[in-house]
């Protein structure tokens, strides 16, 4: 198997070099046949990489322990899901996964654009192929994931670290990779445009969508990393300015800048050099981030071992990228000259420019801070490091200015704003800002930085609300429909703009969550049994330590009661789990009481079974959940902006007004239904028959059966799903109870409460209130965002099909409406 894999990689490398060479030759000789051949070879690379990935997955699934990589990251008892994710669990495999993604994305990009951007395609193919060649070369000569043991292959693997056996950790790398790899596509088109000299805006149109797509996944990747750190690492925060985290943030800044400055080039044909540069920098930063975190250049807690060979290879590649790309930019400078000048600083393009500078500054600053240890060592010989406070101090004002521009930008007109329309535009947003500032003051929040942040949040929300309101009002007047239909039509007409505003709402929510950080409380306490500690408004009482075992791991759980104003409001169950074969590496299981206003967060630092005492870290994190919600809203906004241009435009233009309203109302209802705790939907199904069988009918019931342990005493505390002995009537009864409760539509917590009351204390809990379910609930906004975007997309496609077939001439109507609305929107600007 290993040999087959290695051979596939080698073959891919050869095909890749062929694709690169033949495309360039074909383009220079204007030979259609050679170019087609290059494209064919390029598709073949994807096919080969898919085959190689299949070999790798097969090795993991069948447990082929002759391959070193498999031995390192898997073992035979690992759950299927983690066997698959082990593919990208290590350095070698992650490089291979990178090439795999790049080949697939590249093929799609080439396939989609091969007619429209015929002149660019050969160079796009060549650029992507060269990047692939670099990574393939790395694998073939230095880090071959298919390396086998020459002799004495071990019979069993070492297994994936328990800390990483976490749902978020499994999907976080692919999400980030998708973002990183996706940035190669815009770069390839940019380079192709530079080489061919086709530097009009057409290459931008080809890559805009890709950048947005990659940006979305980058954002989701960062979000997943944050939520993993928050829930799994147990230090109570979500961002530590670690080099690894910073590596993901750098291209995010520059990609965000690019997404904004693209609009200036489209509208005003300015900033052309700047846009090409941003694309190059973004791509460079993805490579640089990879280099930084893997070659041992930067020391951190996550140091990845020194690898001087890898460092040298990467350095060479990066120098090549910079020289080649910027050489091309300089060569093409005459063609890249701006066609317009900045008319006034009170214009939207100026706001965009400022936003770009600030984003770029943020990127450069984070880069500087991350590289500071290496820099200082090179300059002074002393390794100096900068820590979190340094970043926070600097990036707080930067973030606030960025937030302010989010609100200011849309209020300014293109070219030049007059003072009259400034007053008109700014009035209500400023009122909103001042109102929220006043509220913040009254609550007693300090002005710097969180008070200011709240004020700006209000200001930006005011701006966005005003944009939606005014746009919808005009549309209602012109189309003569109701407000809701007008609003939907508005978003449909100009998805990128209004999708962008929704993304801004998400950003506001995220900042809102950040601002809460100022009031974070953090305490470490030692509690003997019965003792209480106070944090914020909460009083925490230790009621003892319990040890349970589910066969896979031993769980030591602290049972805490939470009181507010002398009344018990909840229980918290932080734990330490020791997995089989990993007894020396217990994992900390955080307990979180999530509420919109604040999270109460408890970590079990240590315990003493003899006297039942525990040491705890208690954290109160105000507003932190708004960050996660904000990411969900951001995903929704990006999803809307990403919807195909034509389909939706057709759909809304041809649709009877009421149909759109009804559909959206329906969708909204569905979303609300979907967003309610999953448990609420469960009770509906199930007849008398199924109910009495007591086999789980729904995933929820199954989960509950696994959570609750039979209390009969005869079966050794098996859970309800497993205890099916005939003589154990108790489990029968309990399952019946459970089924009845579920049919009453009771939620998870209510069922637990009912069981505690009926079957005696907390005996019946297998694991105290598993957090998996809780987690799902908080994963929902993100899911909702994606689902709704997809649903809207499908609806749009369906409408279009109906509309397009009968007369075949909807275009005139469409374009007339198009122009009218565009005019109106422009006036609005």
């Amino acid at each position, binding site marked *: 198997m290993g040999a087959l894999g290695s051979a596939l990689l080698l073959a891919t490398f050869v095909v890749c070099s062929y694709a690169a060479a033949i495309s360039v030759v074909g383009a220079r000789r204007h030979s259609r046949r050679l170019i087609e051949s290059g494209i064919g070879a390029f598709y073949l690379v994807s096919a080969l990489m898919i085959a190689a990935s299949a070999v790798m997955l097969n090795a993991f699934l069948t447990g082929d322990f002759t391959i070193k990589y498999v031995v390192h990251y898997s073992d035979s008892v690992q759950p299927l899901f983690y066997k698959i994710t082990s593919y990208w669990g290590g350095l070698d495999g992650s490089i291979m996964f990178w090439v795999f993604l790049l080949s697939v994305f590249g093929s799609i990009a080439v396939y989609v654009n091969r007619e429209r951007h015929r002149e660019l395609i050969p160079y796009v193919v060549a650029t992507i192929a060269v990047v692939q060649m670099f990574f393939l070369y790395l694998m073939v000569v230095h880090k071959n994931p298919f390396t086998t043991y020459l002799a004495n292959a071990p019979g069993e693997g070492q297994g994936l670290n328990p800390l990483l056996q976490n749902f978020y950790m499994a999907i976080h790398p692919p999400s980030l990779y998708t973002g990183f790899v996706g940035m190669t596509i815009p770069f390839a088109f940019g380079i192709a445009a530079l080489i061919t000299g086709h530097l009009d805006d057409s290459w931008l149109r080809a890559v805009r969508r890709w950048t947005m797509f990659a940006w979305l996944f980058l954002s989701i990747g960062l979000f997943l990393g944050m939520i993993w750190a928050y829930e799994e690492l147990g230090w109570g925060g979500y961002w530590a300015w670690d080099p690894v985290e910073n590596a993901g943030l750098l291209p995010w800044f520059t990609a965000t800048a690019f997404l904004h400055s693209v609009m200036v080039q489209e509208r005003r044909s300015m900033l052309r050099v700047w846009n090409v540069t941003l694309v190059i920098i973004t791509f460079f930063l993805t490579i640089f981030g990879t280099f930084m975190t893997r070659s041992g250049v930067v020391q951190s807690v996550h140091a990845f071992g020194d690898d001087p060979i890898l460092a040298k290879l990467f350095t060479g590649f990066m120098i090549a990228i910079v020289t080649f790309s910027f050489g091309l930019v300089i060569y093409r400078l005459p063609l890249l000259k701006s066609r317009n000048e900045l008319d006034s600083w009170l214009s939207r393009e100026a706001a965009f420019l400022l936003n770009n500078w600030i984003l770029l500054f943020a990127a450069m600053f984070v880069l500087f801070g991350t590289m500071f240890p290496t820099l200082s060592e090179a300059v002074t010989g002393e390794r100096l490091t*900068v820590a979190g406070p340094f970043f926070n101090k600097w990036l707080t004002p930067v973030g606030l200015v960025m937030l302010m521009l989010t609100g200011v930008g849309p209020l300014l007109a293109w070219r030049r704003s007059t003072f009259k329309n400034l007053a008109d535009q700014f009035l209500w947003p400023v009122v909103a800002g001042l109102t929220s500032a006043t509220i913040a003051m009254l609550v007693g929040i300090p002005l710097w930085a969180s008070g200011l942040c709240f004020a700006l949040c209000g200001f930006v929300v005011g701006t966005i609300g005003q944009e939606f309101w005014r746009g919808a009002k005009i549309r209602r007047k012109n189309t003569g429909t109701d407000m809701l239909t007008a609003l939907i039509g508005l978003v449909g007409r100009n998805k990128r703009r209004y999708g962008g505003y929704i993304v801004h709402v998400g950003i506001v929510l995220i900042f809102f969550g950040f601002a809460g950080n100022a009031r974070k409380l953090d305490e470490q306490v030692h509690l003997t049994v019965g003792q209480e500690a106070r944090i914020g408004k909460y009083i925490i009482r230790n009621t003892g330590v319990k040890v349970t075992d589910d066969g896979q791991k031993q769980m030591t759980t602290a049972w805490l009661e939470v009181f507010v104003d002398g009344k018990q409001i909840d229980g918290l169950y932080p734990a330490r789990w020791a997995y089989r074969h990993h007894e020396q590496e217990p994992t900390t299981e955080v307990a979180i009481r999530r509420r919109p206003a604040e999270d109460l967060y408890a970590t079990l630092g240590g315990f*003493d079974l003899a006297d039942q005492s525990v040491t705890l870290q208690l954290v109160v994190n105000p507003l932190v959940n708004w960050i996660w919600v904000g990411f969900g809203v951001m995903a929704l906004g990006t999803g809307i902006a990403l919807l195909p241009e034509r389909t939706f435009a057709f759909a809304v233009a041809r649709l009877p007004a009421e149909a759109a309203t009804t559909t959206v109302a329906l969708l909204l209802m569905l979303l609300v239904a979907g967003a309610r705790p999953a448990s609420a939907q469960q009770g509906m199904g199930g007849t008398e028959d199924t109910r009495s069988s007591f086999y789980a009918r729904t995933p929820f019931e199954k989960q509950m059966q696994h959570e609750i342990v039979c209390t009969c005493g005869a079966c050794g505390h098996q859970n309800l799903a497993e205890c099916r002995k005939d003589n154990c009537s108790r489990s029968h009864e309990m399952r019946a109870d459970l089924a009845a409760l579920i049919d009453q539509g009771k939620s998870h917590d209510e069922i637990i409460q009912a069981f505690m009351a009926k079957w005696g204390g907390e005996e019946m809990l297998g694991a105290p209130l598993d957090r998996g379910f809780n987690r799902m609930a908080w994963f929902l906004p993100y899911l909702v965002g994606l689902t709704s975007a997809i649903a809207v997309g499908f609806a749009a496609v369906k409408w279009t099909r109906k509309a397009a077939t009968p007369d075949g001439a909807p275009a005139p109507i469409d374009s007339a409406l198009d122009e009218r609305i565009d005019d109106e929107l422009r006036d609005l600007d």
Partner: protein
Amino acid sequence: MTHRYIKIGVTALVLVGAFAGMLWSTLREGTEYYKNIDEVMVNQQEWHDKQLQLHGYVVPNSILVKQSTLEYKFKVQNNPARASQPGTIVDVTYKGIVPDTFKDEAEVVLKGKLTPTGFHTDPNGVMAKCPSKYEAAEKALAGT
């Protein structure tokens, strides 16, 4: 035209000046020396009361916890635990919760200050990594 350039120049100068000033002032208080134990212990006095990030390895069987508290005492050495020579050994005190990966032989970075009686670690100043798998799997993260 020259008038315009002067304006731009002055603005740029002010911005750069403000930037450099702020950077200098924040760097002065925000930086920490990242040192291996051997480097520091050669000339101890010089490092007293400087904010340090000390890199080393936990000496096996040296971790002590005061009963029913969060007070830790342990030793760290310059070289990895399995190396033939341990290198210089330093006594460390710490009060607080330690990460999951903190244990015998673990590679650690400690934030804090060196005093004549040993190294005093700041709250939340213990960063540890697991020698084998954690590092390997973290590469996935790094792959970013």
